[in-house]
């Protein structure tokens, strides 16, 4: 209502200003973030790459992240199927047989696909033959958010989740071209016929919009863990928590273990870490 009109006018005015100041903002924020992003340490949340005017976020803010401990998945590859199934059920993810139209939130892939920048030579059998989970990295400096022309995808300031607003997405697929991790899927047709079983508490999507993992924002609001984390409960295969909180469980794991991120060279600062 009023709120919306005021916001629109504000944005229209700010657009001109932001257009001029955007390069400076991007520059400032990226240098500070790279400095602290080294060695898998948490970057201050101030570096969110949305130069559109959200730059004032507190460095002490929450930044949710994930550590995926492959040692658990090597032992039990069925565990990964359970995690994927939990996600599919929670979010009404359609199961489309044609790989060209697939919708994927969390899915299985090989080490070489997940980490193409790492050497693939003489890898152990274990790594070569195991399936790895891939999902949205909820980057601290997401290139999809930069690309989106309508702010249909954006960083939630409260927790650092890269979220989607399906109501606003125009389906231009610029975010899909921008994502260096192939984490985004487009609804090439009505997804409903491909959903086996509905979760009555979550919507489906319509054709013509882009979707991806949302770190279970709707479950977190109810005090629940993300569906995939819950599916792996007790194994420690997926640790979920606040990367900016030095006392969190996830930070303890990151302090003790050697972890890697996908394509750090892309400068997006992923929030998902892997113990390989």
């Amino acid at each position, binding site marked *: 209502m009023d709120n919306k009109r005021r916001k629109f006018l504000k944005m229209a005015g700010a657009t001109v200003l932001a257009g001029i100041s955007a390069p400076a903002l991007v520059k400032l924020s990226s240098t500070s973030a790279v400095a602290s992003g080294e060695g898998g340490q948490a970057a201050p949340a101030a570096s969110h790459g949305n130069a559109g005017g959200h730059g004032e976020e507190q460095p002490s803010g929450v930044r949710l992240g994930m550590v995926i401990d492959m040692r658990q998945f090597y032992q039990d590859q069925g565990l990964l199927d359970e995690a994927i199934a939990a996600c599919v059920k929670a979010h*009404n993810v359609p199961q489309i047989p044609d790989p060209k139209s697939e919708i994927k939130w969390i899915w299985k892939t090989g080490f070489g696909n997940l980490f193409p920048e790492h050497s693939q030579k003489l890898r152990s059998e274990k790594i070569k033959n195991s399936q790895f989970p891939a999902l949205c990295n909820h980057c601290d400096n997401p290139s999809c958010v930069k690309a989106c022309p309508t702010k249909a995808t954006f960083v939630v300031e409260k927790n650092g989740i890269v979220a989607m607003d399906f109501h606003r997405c125009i389906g231009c697929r610029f975010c899909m071209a921008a994502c260096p991790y192939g984490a985004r899927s487009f609804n090439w047709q009505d997804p409903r016929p491909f959903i086996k079983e509905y979760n009555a508490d979550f919507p489906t999507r*319509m054709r013509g919009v882009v979707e991806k993992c949302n770190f279970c924002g709707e479950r977190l609001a109810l005090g629940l863990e993300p569906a995939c984390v819950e599916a792996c409960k007790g194994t420690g295969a997926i640790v979920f928590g606040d990367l900016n909180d030095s006392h969190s469980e996830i930070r303890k794991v990151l302090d003790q273990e050697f972890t890697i991120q996908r394509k750090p060279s892309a400068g997006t600062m992923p929030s998902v870490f892997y113990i390989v």
Partner: protein
Amino acid sequence: MYNKGLIVSGLVIFVLLVTFPIWFNGLDAGPLPKPELPPGGEKECVAPAAEMRDSHMQLLNEWRDDVLRNSDRVTVTVGGKEYQKGLQIACMQCHSNKEKFCDTCHEYAAVSPTCWDCHITPTELAKKEAQ
């Protein structure tokens, strides 16, 4: 004025055309829709009925922005019961029959909101379960 006759008759035809729905129906807007009240017997909504009738669409938009964008997932309490903000998870808990509630007015007003392209109605749920 040049072409007076042409212009006037053109204008008359235009006015007749754009008012077609009005006079075609004999100046009668048809019977008013009677949306079904919640089958569960709930009497109270998040706002008075008149306000809801007027501006439920704005309220839904505000809820959407609150939940998705502003991380404001504060629940709403109606009649002692707590609800999360949302069409599917709040409104339709009471107004569980979309066809007899939402559609009656929407059809009458000839609007086709796209809400249910994504949000699942109980009918849609039942249809899927039957499969």
